[in-house]
């Protein structure tokens, strides 16, 4: 079933946050729906479309930024009351724009997520969850990590209220009242939750989640335990999921899943007979899709997907064909509409241009007078700095509401900037100047016209830590730039996990001294990614981590005055020891560091590395052979004379080459880690073996697991 959708842009509002646009249910005889949207200028706007033109219904005055927008109403009645979250306040509007509710929640932080169901209101600030019924406080929960989204299973179908929190530490927390029933681990940090099919499926328990690394899945939340139904792994490396909706756009009677991602990709998934999702349609826009909903807006009788983008564009992907099959007269009319639109825009522009020129002159004049000041205009930068587990690198996404002129990247740690295919920006590296100014990396990205989004990939080395800074200059007058900072943590390749294998041989590092719980927590935050900034409740806390590159693990348990770190990788312990002692000295805290090294762990780590290394070596060897084999094949006319192994390489040539390309420098990184392991093993013994490293590299060049183990043992 081929689905073709045509794009038409309706209107541009201010910068939008995630989930801030909804379609009001159709009312009366009219089948077309109205669009409500809230932007970061605090303006709530409602409009309909008539003949391709946006006709406003109402518009509020600017205020605090609108973080969420939901529709509500009495249960089993049309959901046409508009609720918006701004700051710590919830406001309610009727569909005509009359404000009927203003509810100050007294939360200290601003509201990040909201869900409305009948008279129940579920609100989340960064870590706090609150449940209100008729604006009366009912329940409260403090989450261990940042809350990204909240939802409640349909109360019509279930006997009790079951709210679910999507938390940054890659779990969904299922609540009952003020208590947590259980946690569900999901494959990535969940960013959005939705009821399957819009109503939770037949049982009302099916929940859809989308993650910031682009995965999607459905979990059935039963009262006792979760049941994973299906999961989409994001093979194509698309952006994180920001919004989802269910709507039958294909028109086959089954609701399709609409997905909007932060790299501008819009996808439509249909469901096959086995209820498995099948991709039906995808289109790439140039900026993040913040909200998405299916409905009928532009023209009666044609369904469409309405979406908002980060910079505030409200766009429809409609089933209405662009070129009508009807007579030539109609087409002329469409053109006329377009022409009118263009003409009005042009006159607006001229008007504005004059005004801007005046203002510009005034600004120039003011710069002559001495007491005047000049403020750099602020612009919002939507940035995301995430770890990609698959190739163990960080990706930095920068998005600005207007076109970016250039981005300058500076780092005081050695990191590699990798090329991203999607980027069209011209990158240029400057010579690093280390001695004077601690710049390991200086690079500029000069963007092509109309680029509002830039993606960078950064490869870090464990043990090297510092700050990465990005200076973003958009193409807007007066020219300004904003600097954003990102921490490269000492154990940058680690990721939080919730289960570890306790049977591995472990090395232990124990800290004791006069330090508070908050202090030791801040050190852990300093060293490891994915740890909540706020010290968790309780006296003692345990976090588990996994090295995504080597699969070694780290367990950290700490309380006031004591911290215990256990890892099967001696290098991890060594890095922690160096960083912690450095940090403690900096803050003049007397710290006792004791360590216990388990010799067996080194061989264990080598054993973990062995299959990866062997695979990479084989891959490299195979890829090297491909060209020569192809030439032989060309010469002889066929590949029948080759031994099966070589024939196999030829058959898989494309896949091998792609795989090799996908993980550049993988082998070098493994070599680096083995070298670190070697040095660290003997560092704990008090011997410096740096002089023997060339020997080690020689062994690695003709790799044999036993020889390597023997070398580690013998040295």
């Amino acid at each position: 079933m081929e689905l073709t959708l045509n794009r038409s842009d309706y209107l541009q509002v201010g910068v939008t946050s995630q989930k801030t646009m909804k379609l009001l249910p159709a009312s009366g005889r009219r089948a077309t729906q109205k669009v409500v949207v809230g932007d970061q200028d605090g303006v709530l706007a409602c409009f309909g479309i008539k003949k391709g033109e946006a006709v406003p219904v109402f518009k509020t005055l600017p205020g605090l930024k609108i973080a969420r927008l939901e529709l509500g109403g009495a249960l089993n009645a049309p959901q046409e009351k508009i609720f918006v979250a701004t700051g710590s306040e919830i406001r309610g509007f009727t569909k005509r724009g009359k404000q009927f509710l203003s509810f100050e929640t007294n939360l200290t932080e601003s509201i990040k997520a909201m869900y409305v169901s009948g008279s129940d209101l579920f609100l989340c600030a960064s870590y706090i969850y609150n449940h209100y019924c008729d604006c009366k406080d009912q329940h409260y929960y403090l989450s261990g990590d940042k809350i990204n989204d909240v939802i409640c299973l349909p109360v019509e179908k279930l006997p009790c209220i079951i709210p679910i929190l999507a938390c940054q530490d890659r779990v969904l927390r299922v609540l009952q009242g003020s208590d947590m029933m259980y946690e569900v681990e999901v494959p990535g940090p969940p960013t959005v939750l939705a009821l399957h099919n819009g109503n939770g499926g037949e049982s009302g328990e099916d929940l859809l989640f989308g993650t910031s690394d682009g995965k999607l899945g459905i979990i059935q939340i039963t009262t006792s335990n979760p049941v994973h139904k299906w999961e989409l792994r994001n093979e194509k490396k698309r952006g994180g999921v920001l919004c989802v909706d269910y709507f039958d756009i294909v028109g086959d009677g089954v609701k399709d899943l609409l997905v909007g991602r932060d790299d501008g990709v819009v996808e439509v998934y249909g469901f096959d007979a086995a209820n498995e999702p099948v991709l039906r349609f995808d289109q790439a826009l140039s900026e993040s899709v913040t909200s998405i909903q299916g409905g009928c807006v532009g023209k009666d009788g044609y369904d469409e997907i309405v979406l908002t983008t980060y910079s505030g564009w409200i766009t429809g992907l409609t089933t209405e064909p662009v070129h009508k099959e009807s007579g030539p007269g109609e087409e002329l009319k469409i053109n006329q509409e377009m022409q009118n639109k263009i003409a009005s825009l042009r006159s607006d522009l001229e008007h504005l241009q004059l005004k801007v020129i005046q203002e510009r002159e005034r600004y120039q004049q003011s710069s002559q007078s001495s007491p005047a000041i000049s403020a750099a205009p602020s612009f919002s930068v939507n940035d995301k700095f995430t770890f990609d587990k698959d190739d163990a690198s960080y990706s930095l996404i920068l998005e600005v509401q207007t076109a970016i002129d250039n981005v300058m990247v500076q780092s005081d740690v050695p990191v590699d900037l990798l090329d991203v295919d999607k980027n069209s920006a011209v990158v240029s590296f400057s010579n690093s100047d280390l001695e004077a100014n601690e710049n390991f990396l200086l690079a500029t990205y000069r963007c092509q016209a109309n680029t509002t989004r830039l993606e960078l990939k950064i490869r870090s080395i464990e043990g090297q830590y510092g700050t990465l800074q990005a200076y973003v200059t958009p193409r807007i007058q007066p020219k300004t730039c904003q600097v954003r900072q990102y921490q490269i943590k000492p154990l940058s390749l680690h990721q939080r996990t919730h289960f570890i294998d306790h049977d591995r041989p472990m090395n232990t590092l124990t800290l004791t001294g006069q330090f508070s719980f908050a202090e030791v927590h801040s050190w852990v935050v300093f060293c490891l990614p994915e740890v909540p900034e706020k010290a968790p409740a309780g006296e003692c806390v345990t976090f588990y981590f996994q090295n995504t590159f080597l699969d070694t693990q780290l367990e950290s348990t700490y309380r006031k005055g004591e911290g215990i770190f256990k890892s099967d990788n001696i290098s991890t312990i060594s890095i922690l020891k160096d960083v912690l002692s450095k940090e403690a000295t900096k803050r003049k805290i007397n710290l006792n560091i004791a360590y216990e090294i388990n010799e067996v762990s080194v061989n264990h780590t080598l054993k973990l590395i062995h299959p990866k290394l062997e695979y990479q070596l084989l891959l490299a060897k195979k890829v090297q052979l491909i060209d020569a084999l192809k030439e032989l094949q060309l010469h002889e006319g066929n590949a029948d004379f080759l031994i099966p192994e070589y024939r196999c390489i030829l058959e898989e040539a494309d896949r091998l080459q792609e795989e090799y390309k996908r993980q550049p420098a993988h082998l070098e990184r493994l070599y680096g880690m083995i070298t670190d392991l070697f040095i660290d093993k003997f560092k704990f013994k008090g011997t410096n073996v740096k002089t023997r490293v060339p020997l080690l590299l020689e062994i690695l060049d003709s790799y044999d697991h036993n020889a390597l183990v023997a070398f580690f043992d013998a040295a």
Partner: protein
Amino acid sequence: MLLPVFTLKLRHKISPRMVAVGRYDGTHTCLAAATQAGKVFIHNPYARRQHLNTPRLLQSPLDADVSLLNINQPVSCLTAGVLNPELGHDCLLVGTQTNLLAYDVYNNSDLFYREVIDGANAIVLGTLGDIPSPLAIVGGNCALQGFDYEGNDLFWTVTGDNVHSLALCDFDGDGKKELLVGSEDFDIRVFKEDEIVAEMAETETITSLCPMYGSRFGYALSNGTVGVYDKTARYWRIKSKNHAVSIHAFDLNSDGVRELITGWSNGKVDARSDRTGEVIFKDNFSSAIAGVVEGDYRMDGHVQLICCSVDGEVRGYLPGGAEMKGNLMDTSVEQDLIRELSQKKQNLLLELRNYEENSKAESSSPVNESDGQRGIIPANTKLQTALSVNLGSDSQAAHVELRISTSNDTIIRAVLIFAEGIFTGESHVVHPSIQNLSSCIRIPITPPKDVPVDLHMKTFVGYRNSTQFHVFELTRQLPRFAMYALSNPDPTKEPLSFVNFTVNERVQRVVMWLNQNFLLPEDSEIQNAPFQVCFTSLRNAGHLCIKIKPSGEITVSTDDIDLAGDIIQSMASFFAIEDLQVEADFPVYFEELRKILVKVDEYHSVHQKLSADMADHSNLIRSLLVRAEDARLMRDMKTMKKRYVELYDLNKDLLNGYKIRCNNHTELLSNLKAVNQAIQRAGRLRVGKPKNQVVNACRDAIRSNNLNMLFRIMRVGTASS
């Protein structure tokens, strides 16, 4: 949306840029391309009616329509076309690093096989100027050579560096074709036969050139730039992070004007309007593009645009018809226009809001440090820039210093300088560490070449703790000879070499030229002739003296022949001199050249001797092999073994001999390049007609091996006394 009219998947790799279309039998269009292992394949979709299979052309085992031609050497350039108009069909020209083959595919015969000692990096086929017969012009190591169908060398000249691209284009609109040459020294030169009529400096090696129409032509650089020139003026250019592999002019939207079609290394093909550079069509391949050509591949009377990828995918596009109204992409023009206009409106609104907020901030409070975080600075903050020469110290080499400072207590967080050709990339960043922040930054610049460069500076100004900075954008020009510092005249250090010439200009004009092209301290004033100025090079501390006599005679003394050439060319364009005869003497350089010429002779004779040796050896091998096999048949294993051992040794000798030959060849090449460059340099010391006379006379002198004549020409500019 324009869709390909045909798609082929050939099971052969295609080497980048090595694609040509020709009618090798006079009627059927075939695609020829270089592939792996020193082979050229010819794809003939009409093969069933006609057999190309001959002993030399092998049927490809992978593809029925493909024949393979074995060249046995990496192919470095390839083209097809009419070389012999009497033949009635096209021939295929294949260039390698040492040879040029003109091959008649139809008759399976060589038109000629010529050794081209300077290599063939680029080739173009067509008529040049007044030369009546079509020429195959190859560009190699600083040299250009044109052959007719018999292999006669009808055209020869030298150029500044290794040639990378060639094109024929009616540059001056006289109805005759001029030759465009793009080379490694970033210059596009235009030859009207062997006279250089124009030179355009670019910022990187020119990898492709293509004629558009009239005097307009497209070009591509190795740093990802493509653009269009009309005569010597650049119309537009764009830069991408990918590389343009192949460019071609083709009228894709049927508006009567050819667009610039670019095939990119990431598999993208785009068509850009020749006037604006606006993209009117694009398509994507799964692998890098190898070549973009045109031809009537379907034999239906319509010419298609044919794009080939390195993996052997071939797509053909027919120009869009009238019903597409020139709209080749799937989005409608109106939608795009609305989007663009709305974006503009949004930008203007934002700008307005910025001014509003600024005046709000202004009225609220006086400026202080703490406001710095929000990016508030005094409105009268000014940025000053100054260029000066820094003679360097023990720790730092001599350089040109760019000093940027603010007029108050604000600090400079970072400076981005965008300039082409003087940094490793296109930009240079200065980002002082937090403890080194100040209101003044000194940036050392060392341009590697003597070219005038525009420095586009973006300076981030704010306070120490700011997260928002003001961006000051300024442009300064770095003078051409910035790397020469004014020094005191010192007769003892005056260089031995000099050039002498006379210009009819007032002294003031010469002083103006000096001021424009050198970084002179502000207080240096020169009033009247005769005077003398001396400079020291910051690169190698070499000396440069310029003496002007009241008669207008100028003497430039320097040991650097390139610098002398640059100065003369710079003066000539400043004073608009058309012809300039120059007397020159560079004793040191000439002595070196003499040695090189002697070496070239030596290498030539070694080369001959080695070739003879090789022939001897191969005869020996033949006889040894026969004798060994005889022994085997006689079951005389002992003798056979002995023979084979001998054979093995001989083979080793041959291999060694090959290595020697290789080394000898590279040495020879580099020396030949030096000779070609010497001629080019001697030419650059003159302007206009005398320049061409020198180049031609030098070449004749080298042909006749008359070294004394050669040096005489280089000194006085003519052969006759």
